[in-house]
């Protein structure tokens, strides 16, 4: 999902809720009302929220698998190649003993699977990102365990600063705030 480009006057409208259940309900209603460009925030993972947003993605597991396969090929290939380029023949032992190659192969499989899982996750999440328009909002604090937010982004087709605010007010939030674009370089 793309975030609005800087330049417009508003980034989005942010509604705060005090219970995860209310936020899930609000997300469902916003989707029913036809909004698509929105994001929900919670201080801890709320599974229903992901479902309510209709977010389904399995890139991370596939990336992990790809990383694992790459690591395995790299580990085994590395050992095979070096033993070919620099053969060490001791005691009539085979030049390519797959058994003794397995350990490094396994370790590199694990290493690259984990690296691609975690860096893939960060990349897909567009992290690290040290500044975000939301950080300008005083009330937006994850440190509080009972604050849950729904933002409707201004690049939504149905977005209209007044009408969307009225809609958000109907969801009975603690407060609704306008999120401006930040002036920092993106």
């Amino acid at each position, binding site marked *: *999902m793309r975030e609005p480009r800087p330049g417009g006057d508003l980034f989005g409208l942010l509604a705060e809720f005090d219970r*995860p259940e209310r936020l899930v309900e609000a997300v469902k209603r916003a989707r029913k009302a036809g909004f698509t460009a929105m*994001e*929900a*925030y*919670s*201080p*801890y*993972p*709320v599974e229903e*929220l*992901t479902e309510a*947003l209709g*977010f389904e*993605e*399995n*890139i*991370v*597991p596939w990336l*992990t698998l790809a990383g*694992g396969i790459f690591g395995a090929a790299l580990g085994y290939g*590395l050992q095979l190649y*070096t*033993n070919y*380029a*620099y053969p*060490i023949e001791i005691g009539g*032992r085979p030049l390519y*003993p797959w058994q*003794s*190659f397995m*350990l*490094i192969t*396994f*370790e590199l499989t*694990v*290493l690259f*699977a*984990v*690296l691609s*899982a*975690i860096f*893939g*996750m*960060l990349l*897909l*999440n567009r*992290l*690290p*990102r*040290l500044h*975000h328009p*939301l*950080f300008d909002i005083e009330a937006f*604090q*994850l*440190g*509080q*365990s*009972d604050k849950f937010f729904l933002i409707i982004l201004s690049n939504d087709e149905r977005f209209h600063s007044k009408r969307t605010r009225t809609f958000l007010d109907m969801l009975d939030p603690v407060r609704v705030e306008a999120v401006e674009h930040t002036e920092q370089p993106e």
Partner: protein
Amino acid sequence: MSEKIRKRDAAAAERITRIPLKYPAPRAWWICFAFSLLLLLSFAVSAAVLLISGVGVWGNNIPVNWGLAIANYIWFLGIGHAGTLISAMLLLLGAHWRNSLNRFAEAMTLFAVICAGLYPILHLGRPWFFYWIAPYPNTMTISPQFKSPLSWDFFAVLTYLTVSILFWYIGIIPDLAAVRDRAKRRWQQVIYGLAALGWRGSARHWARWNQAYRLTAAIAIPLVVSVHSEISLLFAAGPIPGWTSTVFPPYFVLGAAFSGFAVVAMIAVVLRHALGLGMLVTDRHLDLLGRFLLATGLMTAYGYVAEAFDSLYGGELQDVGTLMDRLVGAYAFSYWGAVILNFLPLQLLWFESVRRQPLMLFLIGLSVTIGMWFERYMLLTTSLYRDYLVSSWGQYHTSVWEWGLYAGMLGVFLTPFLLFVRFLPVISTFEVEEALRETGDLRHA
């Protein structure tokens, strides 16, 4: 769930994020920190002496060329394993009570693995050339011997360290964001802000985070098993009596978990007392740790029995001789030290009243930690000092620099751990809250 309980538990969870910003017990912390800096000084001096004079300053000699250095390597690596096991295994099993323990257990893993990794490097003889074990395009156009256990070690420790760091770090990011949001001082906002990578807790972020976290956990479990069985495989690669028993890989892994749980129990008792975390690290957690300790301890005991049985049943003279050396030889103290310290106080854990008593659990943990150290020492020296060739029989005496380095390594472990306790959230707050929401009560979380 009543609103009152919810508020109370949320307040307890919130307290953790406040610790890094407003630390409650400075004096005890400073005393510990001064002590660990002293230990660190011992590391600096011992390592400097080693680098200047060479490995000869240690008591290692032929045939016992693996002295304290390798025993401690295995010991530290073993301690590290429990952190990953607690966090990864229990995460996948959905055991919510892990949340009160996993963060500091993982930190323990991290620092223990660093200590472990330093040992083989320092043991190399010319430690400044340690990067020769790494495959890199060099001007000498030679590459490491991949059939050598030393290069297995390199890959195993490197992978284990990297995976532990990443697993721990992505687990702490949301809590760092929470600390960032609470920070009032500018430098705190900047430091925690940078460390939190701009985490905002968006639902899409959480979904991907969950996938990555769980996958890493799933991969970390076979990694733990592989790393420690690799060590036992490394033993078996040398023709030394007493090192070829097939029970070694599982015996090593379980012994590692055993010593690790002992250290986790000790840390849990101390942290809970020092930081007033009784609400989160409850008696039930201590009880569960006690059960784990007992279970892994009994499995390790099975390893002892199986090892002896293996030697006797195999009937090879040299193996039986090594067994006798362990029981009554020059280093019998280490065998009996291991057996007594590991398994006698352990039996107290059958009683629930003992498991729930912090001091008792701490003492049993301490006893197991020392006992497991004796075991690693025993496994090395009793096998090495009398191998197949009678002409190369010899004794091994630890030198003062080995002990100095060992004390120093404890400093290498303690110093970052104390800094972690001081500056980072020691318990995973957001996971506690998540568990709270799912189970309704912190006590059952």
